[in-house]
């Protein structure tokens, strides 16, 4: 039995907004599913950390951001990137390690990003993006800008020193950072209960005298609203804010992980609360043909991205040694 979002909350949004939210989540889901297949076929190099099940977090947060707001991500970045506006083409090409990808094939899955779209290459050291986000927000504040930085990390990162140091810096300087903790209950295979006695990640906000909030991460509208509130506070100089989004991975930590450590009843509970199915469930009576049309459109977009990526040129061997240093000293 699949849950659906409450009709009363859905009714407060224009249909276009809801369909857009659905399409963006579906884009991530289908992108990830296709990448998984390509990976298992052996067509795609490297390793992958996927975000099926967490689409409500990525899309809910990014829909609440302005286009020029910034984002830092983690080793599990595909959803964040698509939600921030990177195209399936530039990402798929990158995942194939081709020279025309968004990082010229030098970043790959774990460092995907495009600063022109506000996304720093994903930082795959757990917690490593947190001090970075604080510094980006410091620059915004010093330049008297109005942007905010959304800093994604998992619950596992909250036991890193980088979390403590980065959040503390943002706190003492009142920086415009929305710290977005996607709590999917597991750091790789280790349950959060084993590694933290704190019941709610958002409780940790008290340690820095900032506001913390826990939200249902699979309810895209709740995520959107919480992020909007947090971003508004940041723009008013009342940041940072720590958001904890409760969610669940529908797939392994990385390649070929069968998730034997996830209890069956826990899986069933969370799978019944899939973020895409919950939104679809609330819309399907009135908008089934529109939703189906989106599914087909997304399918075509992903298919086309795969075809484009397969045909994209490999990097040349000369590319190995470029982009290490700036070519010249700026005067």
């Amino acid at each position: 039995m699949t849950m659906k979002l409450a009709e009363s909350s859905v009714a407060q949004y224009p249909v276009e907004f809801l369909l857009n939210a659905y399409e963006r989540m579906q884009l991530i889901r289908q992108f990830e599913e296709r990448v998984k297949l390509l990976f298992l076929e052996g067509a795609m190099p490297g390793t992958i950390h996927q975000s099926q099940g967490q689409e409500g977090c990525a899309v809910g947060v990014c829909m609440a951001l302005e286009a020029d707001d910034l984002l830092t991500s983690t080793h599990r970045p595909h959803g964040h990137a698509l939600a921030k506006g990177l195209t399936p083409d530039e990402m798929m090409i990158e995942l194939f390690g081709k020279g025309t990808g968004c990082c010229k094939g030098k970043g790959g899955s774990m460092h995907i990003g495009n600063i022109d779209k506000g996304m720093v290459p994903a930082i795959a050291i757990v917690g490593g993006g947190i001090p970075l986000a604080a510094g980006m927000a410091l620059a915004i504040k010093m330049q008297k800008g109005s942007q905010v930085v959304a800093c994604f990390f998992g619950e596992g990162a909250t036991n890193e020193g980088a979390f403590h140091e980065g959040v503390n810096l943002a706190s003492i300087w009142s920086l415009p950072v929305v710290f977005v903790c996607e709590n999917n209950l597991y750091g790789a295979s280790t349950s959060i209960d084993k590694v933290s006695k704190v019941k709610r990640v958002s409780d940790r906000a008290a340690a820095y005298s900032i506001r913390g909030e826990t939200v249902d991460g699979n309810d895209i509208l709740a995520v959107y609203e919480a992020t909007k509130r947090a971003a508004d506070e940041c723009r008013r100089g009342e940041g940072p804010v720590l958001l904890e989004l409760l969610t669940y991975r529908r797939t392994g930590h990385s390649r070929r992980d069968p998730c034997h450590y996830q209890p069956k009843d826990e899986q069933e509970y969370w799978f019944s609360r899939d973020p895409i199915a919950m939104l679809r469930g609330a819309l399907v009576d009135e908008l089934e043909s529109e939703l189906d049309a989106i599914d087909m459109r997304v399918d075509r977009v992903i298919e086309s991205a795969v075809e484009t990526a397969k045909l994209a040129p490999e990097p040349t061997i000369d590319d190995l040694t470029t982009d290490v240093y700036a070519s010249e000293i700026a005067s």
Partner: protein
Amino acid sequence: MKRQSIAEALRDAITEEMERDEKVFCMGEDIGVPGGFGGAFTVTLGLEQKFPDRVLDTPISELGFFGAAVGAAIMGMRPIADVQYSDFLFLAMDQIVNNAAKLRYMSGGTLSVPVVFRAPVGATGRGSQHAQNMERYFIGVPGLRVVAPSNAYDAKGLLKSAVRSDDPVLIFEHKLLYGSKGARAESGAIDGSSDIPDEDYTVPLGKANVLRSGQHVTILAWLLMAHEALNAARALAEQGIEVEVIDVRSLSPIDWTTIAESVSKTGLAVIVEEGPKTGGVGAELSAGLMEHCGESLTAPVVRVASADVPVPFAPVLENAYRPDAARIVQAIRSVVV
């Protein structure tokens, strides 16, 4: 023209760069507290009065504020972040190596990280954890530039180049060379002062400097050891041995053109390093000498370095740890026949 210590020259360099470009700012521990120290060695003393919004005192959070410096740099600012003692760089290692040095590459060349990190090194009566020469850990980090000035002229010129560079630059400074005054003066300090021109100048990153010419043997040294090498050269000159002293100065990249030119003339190379011999910068220099001018060498490369031990506390042990002119003279006499 004025005579300045390294601390004074660095302070002027920072001031001038902050005046020139409002994107330049400083962050670090105890760097701008009124009535405080001006950083551990007085380099930023008084800057907070001139630039109240651009001298940021940080928590004791080396990982945090080095990461914040990198984050600010990718947003177009030009931060100068310093640690009180270079030993603390281990705490910030992830941000320096995994983020600052790699973001340009990982982003396919779309990001620049114009950040400067400053870090004081050297064995100076503080035991093992405020004493190391950390150069060795950073010379093999692609994307990061590393410099180590031995005198005030170079310190000012290199810091200015570092601030203007679009690459991350790590500057190692030596505690005994600063010329810090008052309560922050160092016992056993060596004079690193220079005549500083009144006009703006830079010293290019990536270039070594021939401190003294000679035709019999080449010494490669940097920071404090450049001074010990000069002392040794002066002593040997009285015995008819003419030593060419090269201040390597840029540890990454290394200026092989200048070094190979010297060694092709002298045929002999002695490397002097403060820090354990094993795995030191001297090992890289030695291997590079073989690659770049090995056919010119008439005898094996000699390394003068510290013993493979942590930095000791007792003055008698610390003096034995740190190479000095006498040891350098001895090493040179072993190869110059």
